[in-house]
């Protein structure tokens, strides 16, 4: 019998009861693997060009991974990033070339709060300056911005479902804000 190495993990929102009523469903999605991807979009190998979203402010599903386009040369992959056919190089002293894709595991940086339901958009709009109307911020869109003065990545999913990626150290503050604001919606 082997012990589960993750048995003692405690997520940033482990103490958050969530919100659940007819108009809102809020809870944490803990422990998803997150990988920061840096690459030059003009020099992507075909295997990468096929899976990365290339329109600013969008995300797309690629296999079991959701990949968000964060900046001109930066993406965030949520979920286990399936290996791409490229030979990993053990030579760490080699200079990073312009064709290289650089992966950094940032799983512990942020946790995810899932906000869903017909009241979700109004709840977020209460603390966010972005236009969240479905015609502007519909499924497939993502943005880095402020929610209730906390830095977040917002991800619009299907059917009034949003994922809020928030830094671990801000998670409890933001959860408390959500629980408080949810009373109105």
């Amino acid at each position, binding site marked *: 019998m082997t012990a589960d190495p993750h048995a003692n993990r405690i997520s940033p929102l482990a103490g958050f009861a969530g919100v659940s009523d007819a108009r809102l469903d809020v809870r944490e999605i803990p422990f998803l693997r997150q990988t920061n991807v840096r690459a030059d979009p003009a020099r992507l190998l075909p295997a990468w060009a096929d899976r990365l979203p290339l329109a600013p402010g969008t995300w797309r599903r690629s296999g079991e991974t959701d990949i968000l386009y964060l*900046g*001109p040369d930066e993406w965030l992959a949520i979920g286990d990033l399936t290996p791409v056919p490229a030979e990993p190089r053990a030579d760490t002293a080699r200079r990073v070339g312009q064709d290289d894709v650089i992966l950094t595991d940032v799983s512990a940086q942020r946790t995810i709060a899932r906000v869903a339901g017909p009241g979700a958009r109004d709840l977020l709009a209460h603390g966010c300056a972005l236009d969240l109307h479905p015609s502007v911020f519909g499924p497939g869109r993502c*943005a*880095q*911005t*402020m929610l209730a003065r906390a830095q977040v990545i917002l991800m619009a999913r299907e059917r009034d479902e949003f994922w809020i990626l928030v830094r671990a150290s801000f998670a409890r503050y933001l959860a408390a804000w959500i629980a408080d604001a949810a009373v109105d919606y």
Partner: protein
Amino acid sequence: MLLIPCPWCGPRDEAEFHYGGQAHVAYPADPAALTDEEWARYLFFRDNPMGPFSERWNHTSGCRRWFTVTRDTTTNAITPETSR
């Protein structure tokens, strides 16, 4: 509050940005050759025009990229900088 057009994220509230001062202040080619006065002038002296001013901003709460815009200091009208 200013609405600042981030070239990547689009127009966002000023509160999401960090100001970076005058743009196009080139680092001296040979700093060691400068007199103290010239070095101080490079470090501390900036233009203060009435009218168009080319300046740097960092979208700290968004994409975290630096970019340059032209802001009219009399109207705060901001236009993207096309060259560079």
